[in-house]
């Protein structure tokens, strides 16, 4: 995600790169083990780790600001897919915690991209349907306090050591999506085109047939079919999981409120376009 890219931000981000991951993963890993999405549970882990102290010991104001930006960017990444609902909830709580405990002034904001907006609203809709009022309350508090900047989030990343994303945090459907992305399909199509042209040049079209003619379409169809099957099955699994967690939720919300009237998206369209990136 983005920001105005200054040399200072890049320097700070590179300096803390691996360690900020470790801290966030430890916090969210412990949160994951509780199998809860309650903010109260998150707070206990936060206090136990004394996570507020992550901002301490930075003497210069511009470095405080750069560090907070980096920390918010890291927390934001956990708030989006491909992470599970619980980790994404942890990401939201982490955003809230980092935002409110920061020492920079004026406060560094949370930058939300237009391309992520539909995903965020879908997440909130899921939280609402499952009755997770603390998730909604935390989110609404951030919005009301003007903690959010609405932007295109864009960040030029320079070469850094690669960090392996924690697989236990990721949601299942993401793995096929990662493998069969539009870039991979384009590359396969390009290579196949090259192969066909080579065959024509050597007049071997009728003799050799190492690859299927409509290979890319077949892969795409398989992947979409798999995703649809997974959606059907995972909805029932997720429904069970949410039902289990819901037993600890706050009260019962019977009506879908008008807050989401500004939702202007097609869920199916999002899922397919998310899949094909």
């Amino acid at each position, binding site marked *: 995600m983005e920001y105005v890219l200054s040399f200072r931000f890049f320097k700070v981000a590179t300096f803390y790169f691996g*360690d900020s991951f470790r*801290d966030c993963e430890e916090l969210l890993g412990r949160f994951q083990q509780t199998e809860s999405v309650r903010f109260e549970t998150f707070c206990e882990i936060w206090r136990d780790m004394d996570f507020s102290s992550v901002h301490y*010991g930075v003497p210069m104001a511009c470095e405080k600001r750069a560090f907070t930006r980096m920390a918010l960017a890291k927390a934001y990444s956990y708030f989006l897919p491909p992470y599970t609902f619980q980790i994404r909830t942890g990401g939201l709580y982490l955003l809230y915690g980092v935002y409110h405990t920061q020492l920079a002034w004026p406060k560094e904001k949370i930058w939300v991209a237009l391309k992520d907006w539909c995903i965020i609203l879908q997440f909130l809709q899921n939280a609402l349907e499952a009755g997770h009022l603390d998730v909604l309350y935390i989110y609404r508090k951030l919005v009301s306090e003007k903690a959010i900047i609405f932007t295109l989030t864009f960040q030029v990343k320079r070469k850094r050591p690669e960090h392996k994303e924690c697989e236990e945090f990721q949601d299942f459907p993401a793995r096929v999506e990662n493998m069969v992305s539009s870039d991979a399909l384009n590359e396969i199509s390009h290579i196949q085109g090259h192969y066909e042209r080579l065959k024509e040049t050597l007049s071997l079209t009728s003799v050799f047939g190492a690859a299927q003619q409509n290979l890319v379409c077949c892969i795409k169809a398989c992947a979409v079919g798999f995703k649809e099957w997974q959606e059907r099955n995972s909805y029932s699994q997720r429904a069970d999981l949410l039902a289990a967690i819901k037993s600890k939720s706050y009260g019962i919300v*019977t009506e879908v409120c008008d807050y989401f009237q500004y939702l202007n998206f097609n869920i199916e369209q999002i899922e397919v376009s998310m899949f094909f990136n």
Partner: protein
Amino acid sequence: MAEGGGRSNPNVPVYEYVDINTQVFHVGSFRQLWLDSLPPDVYSFEELDEEAQDAKFSEEFGVPAETLAELRAICSVDSLKSYPDDEPPDTSVVPPDPQLACLRLRKRKQDYKNSLAKDYTGRHDAYTNEMELQSVGRKPADADNAVPEGEIVLTFNIVYPVIFYRFKYVRPHQTLQVLGSQKLAELRDAICCVSDLQVFGEFSSVPDAVPQFVSKDHYKSAFFYFEGVFYNDMRYPECRDISQTTREWAKTRDFPAFTVAKMEETTFYDLKVKIGYPYLYCHQGDCEHVVILTDIRLIHRDDCRDRKLYPLLTYKHRVVTRKCSVCHLYISRWITTNDSLAPMDPCLFCDQCFRLLHYDKEGNKIAPFKAYSYVDPGAFN
């Protein structure tokens, strides 16, 4: 990070090359998408007090009062504190025996700095934060100059031209924020470049007659290049279309056709651009700056809301000024060549040393030399 809903709408910026630049999008349409997606109170500058926020939440989600009170208590910011109220920690130092990996790393840096005899603060760091704070939350005295809610702020990095060899690698730049409703010409006027201040002419015989006119007054033509369109500055009768040469050359080669427009008639809402992609600003005929749009967002309550202050300079690379070869104190104002009195060719002098060395009491030259007015690139510091 997944990208959702992007491909279906061309004005939702998505990456063309991941982590490098986005695809082309229309700025005005991007703004409209956000305004259509958000309730007005979300991007409004007004903030409700806590009680009003809670009342609204309770009404929207049908939350009973006891549950709301419980939520307020549990989700309070105080829940994040791990110290008692009467023992606040010292936030200026890393706590002893830190658990967090970030803190252990920072402690090593802190211990190293404490071991140094002297610790210098970089001048860039000293100025950067100061510059940002100048405009935060500024409101206009006059309501007519207030930036409205829902306005778009674009952030441009204007890279310095390569006037020193090291500028190829350091890539110094200045960062300007502009409003979507402003014209491109306003950005052109706000860009500070030392080539605009050059004074041409040889003045060794008449050092007191240095004219007040600078290159900016003589050569007023300029253009921006964005996505196949040259936006020329045609505000003055002296302005010419300096992009014409490039366009005619491109016609003879295998390039797509370029078009022209006027920068004083084009607002940033009208632009189709990519974020992160290098574009061009050219002035003074051959002074070229790479221009990169780094960010585009809705205006926030804490931003500068005084329209007269835009385009707003939020970051500027400070160039080390070149001092006089004699006193090494004052910034140079003269450059001499073919000068037998100078230790090197060319040589820089401040005004006092230049006159003391090259002229007698009556003001006559005491040796042959050529003298030109020198404007230091750090003049905008």
